[in-house]
């Protein structure tokens, strides 16, 4: 008698010591959250694996997940949980050879779908109390499957179906493994504030930050009438996509019109972007303090635009005391776009609402600003008042998937 489960693998090389139990606790919570609403599943933690038991709570213990749709749904959701390395829909059996044989035959039949197929068996005996070792078990099951399943032949090099068997406190038989996103479970690394513009890059940067276990709050700088309600909605929609991966995102919409006008009116146009970015970082740091966040995250990629030369980044960076994480720093535009498509933010990011703000982007921004000239230009501004004004105009909402 076998029970339908999904076997969840996690953990990366180098994750050890005291980190591990904390990681596991957070991951368990994240997986449970991702599977919320599926009342037939229960998650157990066992020996370096999570076991998602299907149909356990539905009052039909032991009844297999008929057509596998529940397992499929679970795997799809797990594919969005950071920290999950891979997942396999599996049959769990007792440590009884006949039960394992039956489960393996059923798995191969189902994977072959009634057509002739080549297969091999991969066995792993982690439980040394089991009488057959890994190789002996693989050989034994291979021979059994050739007898039990019509039309199948062995091909150890390029099999169409690989029947995997893991023998632990119970045995697990499966033929399919779905890749997870890897990384660390969201929350295991703390909180950070993402500067989210609505373009292609910053949502991807946020996603990569979440992938390394950061819980996100987003700061969006809104400049009505230069940006519209639609551009603001676009940012909320982007956060909704991010929330599908990493859980709820708190969005702070910062009223930035007055600050941009001050910069525009009082400072040399070619330094406008530099000064604006410095002001944004100051506001974001204050938001980070409110959020208990220990880092800022930006979508900067080295050399991509004028504000992203090393000189610019240096001058802009000076105003911040928190570390600024730039997960895209080494990526090319094409790589960022590919990630944005995979994450699901690309189609939103390319909506054209954002460009009204271009009025503040000078025709010839300084690509290599010097710190002294920027600080001199900034002296024309009442920076604390502008930051306070922007913070006073913050509207906050929590966006869930």
């Amino acid at each position, binding site marked *: 008698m076998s029970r339908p489960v999904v076997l969840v693998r996690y953990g990366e090389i180098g994750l050890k010591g005291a980190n591990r139990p904390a990681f596991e606790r957070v991951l368990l919570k994240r997986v449970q959250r991702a599977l919320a609403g599926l009342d037939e599943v229960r998650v157990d933690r066992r020996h370096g694996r999570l076991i998602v038991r299907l149909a356990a709570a539905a009052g039909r213990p032991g009844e297999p997940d008929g057509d596998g749709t529940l397992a499929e749904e679970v795997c799809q959701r797990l594919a969005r949980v950071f920290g999950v390395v891979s997942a396999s829909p599996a049959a769990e059996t007792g440590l009884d050879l006949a039960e394992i044989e039956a489960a393996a035959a059923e798995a191969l039949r189902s994977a072959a779908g009634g057509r002739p197929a080549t297969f091999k068996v991969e066995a792993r005996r982690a439980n040394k109390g089991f009488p057959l070792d890994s190789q002996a078990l693989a050989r034994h099951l291979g021979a059994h499957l050739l007898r039990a399943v019509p039309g199948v032949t062995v091909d150890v090099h390029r099999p169409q179906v690989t029947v995997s068997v893991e023998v632990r406190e119970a045995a697990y038989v499966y033929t399919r493994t779905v890749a997870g996103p890897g990384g660390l479970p969201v929350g295991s690394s703390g909180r950070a504030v993402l500067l989210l513009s609505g373009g292609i890059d910053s949502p991807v940067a946020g996603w990569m930050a979440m992938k390394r276990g950061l819980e996100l709050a987003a700061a969006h700088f809104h400049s009505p*009438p230069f940006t519209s309600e639609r551009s603001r909605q676009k940012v909320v929609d982007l956060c909704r996509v991010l929330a599908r991966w990493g859980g709820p995102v708190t969005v702070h919409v910062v009223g930035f019109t007055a600050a941009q006008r001050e910069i525009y009116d009082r400072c040399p146009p070619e330094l406008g972007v530099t000064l604006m970015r410095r002001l944004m970082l100051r506001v974001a740091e204050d938001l980070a303090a409110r959020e208990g966040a220990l880092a800022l995250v930006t979508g900067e990629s080295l050399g991509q635009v004028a504000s992203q030369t090393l000189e610019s980044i240096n001058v802009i960076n000076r105003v911040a005391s928190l570390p600024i994480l730039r997960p895209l720093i080494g990526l090319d535009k094409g790589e960022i776009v590919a990630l944005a498509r995979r994450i699901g933010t690309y189609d939103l990011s390319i909506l054209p609402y954002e460009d009204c703000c271009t009025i503040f982007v000078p025709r010839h921004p300084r690509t290599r600003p010097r710190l002294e000239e920027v600080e001199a230009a900034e002296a024309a501004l009442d920076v604390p008042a502008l930051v306070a004004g922007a913070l006073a105009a913050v509207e906050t909402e929590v966006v869930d998937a």
Partner: protein
Amino acid sequence: MVRAVYLDNSATTRARPEVVRAVVSALEETYGNPSSPHGLGFRAERLVKEAREAVARALGAEPGEVVFTSGGTEANNLALVGAAHALRRRGRRVITTRVEHPSVLRACERLEEEGFEVVYLPVDRLGLISPADMAAALTPDTILVSIQHVNNEVGTVQPLPEVARVLGRGPGAPAGAGTGLPLWHVDAVQSLGKLSLDVRRLGVDLVSLSAHKIHGPKGCGALYVRTGVKLRPLLVGGGQEGGLRAGTENVPGIAGFGAAVRLALAEREEAAARLAALRDRLAEGILRAVPQARLNGALAGRPSEAAPHIVSVAFPGLRGEVLVHALEERGVYASTGAACSARRHAASHVLRALGLDPAAVEGTLRFSLSPLNTEEDVDAAVAAVGEAVAALRGLVRR
């Protein structure tokens, strides 16, 4: 928030209370299917019939010549594609203008993909086509001519009587005219309720209308199809609307359209005069408040050829989109170009066809009035424009 001043009536209008009552009553009480044999179905059918009569009256047409559609876009699609497909063996040339609504232009592109040849007539600085261009483009294999009545972006009124003369239509036309080709379609979505259009006197074969531009509900429009004109339907099914538009009738929408068109017809002459006065007050007020502003379309040079409800103004050096949001902050709703293009990147094809320079195209706003607007609305809008432009002035990209 300040009192809202809605001057985007060419995008859509607020439904009038009589319209809302007609729609709600059709939803709650006369909810039968007009094709059903029982009394409830009959009453729904009667509702549709009454609306059909009201729309026909507005055009001087027979009720049997009115086909209800899902709106102006479907009416234009049905007119263009339906006529071209029905006449494909008679010829392959279609004549239209460069300033038509996208629902005409995209339909023409579809026809071009299918092997039809479409001639797009140019317009002058004011947005007017030249009847001579039209005469020159006419060939024996021209099957369809589609000319809008009022341009939705700048309000220029095309010289339909002259087009009729070129096509040999209208009162002076020889007997038997109107049975031949080409068919003549007029997109009258923007003129309904503002300008008169008598299909018999003009000698037009197809006319597109929309309910929500005259305080009716969205999702309802009509195509006038002159008796004897054959179209190939776009939607096939249960044979409703004389087989030209299958699908259970949108009874609530049609009832609302009927109510709206009755009001618009009863009030048209008075409304047109009042609208023209409001339009002039608005245009003059804006030019006074912002001396650099420039009017677009016929209003700039031949006000007699300008629709009474549309004021298109260029504010060179400003971005129309930003100005719209700045006005919105002051409670005034206007539009850049047309509502349909306000969400796209492309610069207005109409303004470019008029030969405006890029700065004027980028800085153009459209204010569109309805009979529900007042002088106070106009004065508030003028004040808001003055303030917004002053606040944005100097904020040009440098």
